C-alpha cells in the first residue's frame, strides 16, 4: 500500500524531536542532509556557526562568537543589541572528536549548567545529530522549563519578552 513506491522521493523537511529522557536529561535529534564532516564543520568553525545558531525567529542578536575548539579550549557567545547589557554564554570543550562527537560545559549559570554532548552519525550521506544535555539536578532542568512556563502565563503582549526568555534558554552552544 505504498503510494510513493516507484515515484521520486518527495523532498521532506527533516523532523526535529525534543524529549526529556529523565529528570536530568534533555535530548534533541535531527537528521541533516549532508555528510558528518560538513555538519561537524558547521558546529566548529565560528564563521559558519554564526550563520545558523541564532535564527531570526529567535529574536536574538549574536554580537560575537569565539570558539577554541579543542579539548580544554573555551568558547564565548555574546548576545544582545545593547553592548552595556550583554547576555553571555561560555564554557569549555571537554571532548572534540572530529566528525563524530563534541562535549562542552555551560558555565554561565555557575554549577547549574548542563554538560552538552553532540554526536554526529553519518548514514547514506545524511547525518543524524543527537544533542544530549545532562543537568546537575532535576531542579536545574525544571528551572529551564519553569522559566519558560512562567513567561507563557503572561499576556500575549509580552510575547517578545517571552521569545527572549526562550531564546536565552537555548542560547548556549
Amino acid at each position, binding site marked *: 500500500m505504498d503510494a510513493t513506491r516507484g515515484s521520486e522521493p518527495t523532498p521532506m523537511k527533516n523532523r526535529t524531536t525534543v524529549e*526529556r529522557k529523565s529528570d536530568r536529561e534533555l535530548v534533541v535529534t535531527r537528521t*541533516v*542532509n549532508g555528510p558528518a564532516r*560538513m*555538519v561537524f564543520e558547521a558546529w566548529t568553525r565560528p564563521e559558519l556557526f554564526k550563520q545558523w545558531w541564532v535564527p531570526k525567529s529567535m529574536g536574538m542578536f549574536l554580537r560575537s562568537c569565539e570558539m577554541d575548539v579543542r579539548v580544554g579550549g573555551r568558547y564565548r557567545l555574546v548576545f544582545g543589541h545593547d553592548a552595556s547589557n550583554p547576555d553571555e554564554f561560555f564554557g569549555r570543550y571537554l571532548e572534540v572528536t572530529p566528525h563524530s562527537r563534541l562535549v562542552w560545559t555551560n558555565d554561565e549559570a555557575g554549577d547549574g549548567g548542563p554538560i552538552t554532548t553532540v554526536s554526529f552519525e553519518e548514514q547514506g550521506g545524511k547525518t543524524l*545529530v543527537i544533542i544530549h544535555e545532562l543537568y546537575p539536578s532535576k531542579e536545574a532542568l525544571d528551572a529551564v522549563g519553569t522559566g*519558560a*512556563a512562567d513567561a*507563557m502565563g503572561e499576556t500575549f503582549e509580552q510575547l517578545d519578552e517571552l521569545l527572549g526568555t526562550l531564546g536565552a534558554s537555548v542560547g548556549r552552544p
Partner: protein
Amino acid sequence: MVQYTRADFDASFAALSDATRRGVLEQLGRADASITDLAEQFHMTLTGMKKHVGVLEQAGLVTTEKVGRVRTCKLGLRRLEEEAAWIDRYRQCWDARFDELEKVVEELKRKEKIDGRNKRK
C-alpha cells in the same frame, strides 16, 4: 515529567485503566481534595487511596501537596500542559536553528562541487 516517552504514556494508560482512579480524576476536576476526603468518598482505606493517588502522581496526572498534616490532591494536567508547551517551544527553536544549519551545509556541498570541478579542469 513530560509525557513524551513510551514509558510515560504507558504510565498514563496504566493509571487510567482503573475505575477508582478515573473517579478520583473526575472528582479532582471539580475540586481539590485531601486523601482523607477521597478515601471516604470512594469507601476505601487511607492506605488504599494513597496507593491510587501515588499511581496517578507517578503518571503526572495528579499533584499533591502536604500542608500541616493534610495532603491535598489536585489535577496535574495544567503543569503537564505547561511543560509540554515549553518542550514544544524548545523544539521549535531547535527546528529553526537546524533549518539554518541545513542551509549552511548545502552551501558547503555546493562549494565542494565547484572546487571539485575546478580541480578536474
